[in-house]
């Protein structure tokens, strides 16, 4: 179901009042797909408890782990399937909301234990047990979060049991309540109100229930829902990374239809022309957004002109934008040289394919993808070295947040595994330079540990929200610079940030400055930046490398 929009209606399966394990499996798959479609929306709402913008990702990964457990199962027993789902959610739980979600599944599963099928009263009971289990996991429940939403859902479910014993109608009521409850969260949690958002975890839970309902109603799950979205919320700027062949132009048309629009016919017709379709509506004006191949460039415009009055048309050449803005980041996968049996193997965590290529050229034995917002699991790290023909393993986590995960990998393997606690890419690369594959394990580790002190790391990114840390005040959207993990400056331009970081690092006392540019940095800016730095630091050697890392415009190594 992941690729194709749902066309038929699944109501028949479920109107007969009871569902079995296979039905539940399909509902969970629908939840996962719909949550994933809306992952970025959930991420962008994340301000509590820590504004790190990963709630959506964490919830998706938790649901993914839950679904993976039952994906290939043909078990009909509902209780069994629910238990397996809960187990998967527990094992895959990441982040605060992921843990809460896994508790919700745990309570749900316990309630339907041993039930071959589930009817509406069973379902309602399961939701209330899920609520109770969720609330048990915290001393001071903070209201205005996912906890409040599950609580409201449980109350609604209990009271609605008098009105209906039909599962589909029950689900409809719950989705409605989830939405209302999410809208109320800013009233309960001041930090949400200040940031002018609703709670991210609560919104995620809403998408989970809504995904089930959409599946039953045969609605599309892999395209963001345009029908309910107000015009102002249409995020047209963030479409860059989704661009695939056949998406040469972005066409946005505002129009006022003459008679009411039949959205399903409208969507069907648009799908003949292109992809990435979004439709927004406000005050009778519709905005249609579509990506089309060159030969279809004018078709959406002609089509909307037939429907009513076109008020505005905007066309952008995506191919050109891609080349300029994304710099056509070279996605060539690194070539890893197989290691000699018995030699020391280094596993490096890398956030971008460019950086991976540099690591590969230095002779790492395996690369694990991961970085700031995508921490790899212990499992992924172990998996990377398990099959290597050696017992001597060194892990370079290359990110502060991954060091701990890497360390737990050392405890779970029978091999001799050591972690050199590199907290940045430059540290990782510097450590890598000290590798002598046939050398003595302990002395190589000592060398690496000593080496990581010798390099300074600068990182430049965009602030995702306004905050004050380390005495530096930051406005959302500003360019910020971090030196060795600490925020040192915020400014409006990349050039200033870059020079500021070099100054703070006393770059004049070092020899080599290496810039790894990220996937989001316009390629044309790089030579300008290079000249600027060379002018200021004529005695230092400057090297430019394609990093392809997300989020960080630049990672700077000063050594």
């Amino acid at each position, binding site marked *: 179901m992941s690729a194709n929009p749902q066309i038929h209606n699944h109501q028949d399966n479920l109107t007969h009042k009871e569902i079995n394990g296979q039905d539940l499996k399909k509902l969970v798959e629908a939840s996962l797909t719909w949550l994933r479609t809306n992952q970025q929306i959930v991420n962008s709402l994340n301000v509590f*408890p*820590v*504004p*790190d913008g990963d709630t959506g990702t964490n919830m998706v990964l938790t649901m993914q782990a839950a679904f993976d457990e039952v994906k290939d199962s043909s078990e009909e027993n509902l209780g069994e399937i629910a238990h397996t789902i809960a187990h998967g959610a*527990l*094992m895959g*739980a*990441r*982040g*605060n909301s*992921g*843990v*809460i979600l*896994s*508790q919700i599944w*745990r309570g749900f599963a*316990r309630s339907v234990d041993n039930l071959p099928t589930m009817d509406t009263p069973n379902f309602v009971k399961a939701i209330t047990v899920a609520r109770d*289990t969720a609330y*048990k*996991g*915290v*001393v*001071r429940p*903070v209201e205005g979060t996912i906890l409040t939403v599950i609580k409201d859902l449980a109350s609604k479910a209990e009271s609605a049991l008098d009105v209906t014993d039909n599962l589909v109608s029950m689900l409809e009521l719950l989705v409605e309540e989830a939405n209302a409850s999410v809208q109320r969260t800013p009233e309960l949690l001041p930090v949400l109100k200040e940031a002018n958002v609703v709670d991210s975890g609560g919104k995620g839970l809403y998408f989970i229930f809504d995904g089930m309902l959409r599946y039953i109603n045969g609605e599309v799950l892999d395209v963001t829902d345009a029908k309910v979205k107000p015009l102002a919320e249409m995020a047209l700027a963030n479409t860059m990374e989704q661009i695939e062949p056949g998406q040469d132009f972005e066409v946005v048309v505002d129009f006022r239809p003459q008679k009411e629009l039949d959205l399903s016919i409208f969507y069907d017709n648009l799908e003949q022309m292109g992809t990435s379709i979004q439709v927004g509506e406000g005050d009778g004006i519709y905005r249609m957004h579509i990506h089309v191949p060159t030969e279809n460039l004018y078709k959406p415009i002609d089509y909307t002109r037939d429907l009513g009055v076109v008020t505005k048309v905007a066309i952008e050449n995506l191919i050109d934008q891609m080349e300029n803005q994304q710099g056509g980041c070279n996605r060539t996968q690194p070539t890893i040289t197989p290691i000699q049996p018995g030699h020391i193997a280094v596993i490096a965590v890398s956030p971008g394919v460019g950086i991976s290529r540099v690591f590969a050229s230095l002779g790492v034995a395996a690369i694990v993808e991961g970085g700031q917002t995508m921490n790899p699991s*212990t499992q992924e790290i172990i998996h990377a070295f398990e099959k290597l023909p050696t017992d001597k393993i060194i892990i370079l986590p290359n990110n502060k947040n991954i060091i*701990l995960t890497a360390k*737990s990998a050392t405890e779970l393997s029978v091999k001799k595994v050591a972690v050199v606690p590199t907290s940045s890419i430059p540290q990782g690369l510097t450590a890598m330079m000290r590798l002598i594959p046939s050398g003595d394990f302990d002395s190589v580790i000592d060398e690496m540990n000593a080496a990581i002190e010798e390099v300074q790391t600068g990182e430049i990114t965009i602030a995702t929200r306004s*905050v*004050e*840390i*380390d*005495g530096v005040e930051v406005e959302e959207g500003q360019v910020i610079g971090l030196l060795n993990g*600490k925020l040192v400056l915020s400014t409006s331009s990349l050039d200033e940030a870059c020079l500021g970081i070099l100054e703070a690092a006393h770059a004049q006392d070092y020899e080599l400055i290496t810039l790894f540019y990220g996937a989001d940095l316009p390629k044309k800016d790089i030579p300008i930046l290079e000249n600027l730095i060379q002018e200021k630091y004529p005695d230092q050697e400057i090297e430019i490398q394609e990093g392809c890392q997300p989020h960080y415009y630049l990672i700077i190594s000063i050594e």
Partner: protein
Amino acid sequence: MTDEIKPIGSIHVSPRAIAAIAYHAALQSYGLVGLTSKNIVEGLAQVLVKDPTHGVEVNYNGEQIKIDLYVIIEYGTRIKSVANSVKNSVRYHVEKALGMPIDEINVHVRGLRISSLD
């Protein structure tokens, strides 16, 4: 004492104050059901303490701030994820209140609370 020199004087924040912030941030963290004193012997670790200096240790050596938390976690949650969330949440809230970076936060899981029958 945690000191910050300002042109017109200095600000002193006692470890106890930092511990109180950490304590509140930790207790709001999902999956954590209590803090427990470091020194109580293993068998008594189940005693949950309400005083904000118990279960939280703040060390300041003149340069670096280090926080140690001794916690009890709800049985049935993923301990690693909960401990990570606690750490993130404490770091965020303390740094936000203090305006200074925390160098190290260690979460010591001292026990699990089994509150439901499965």
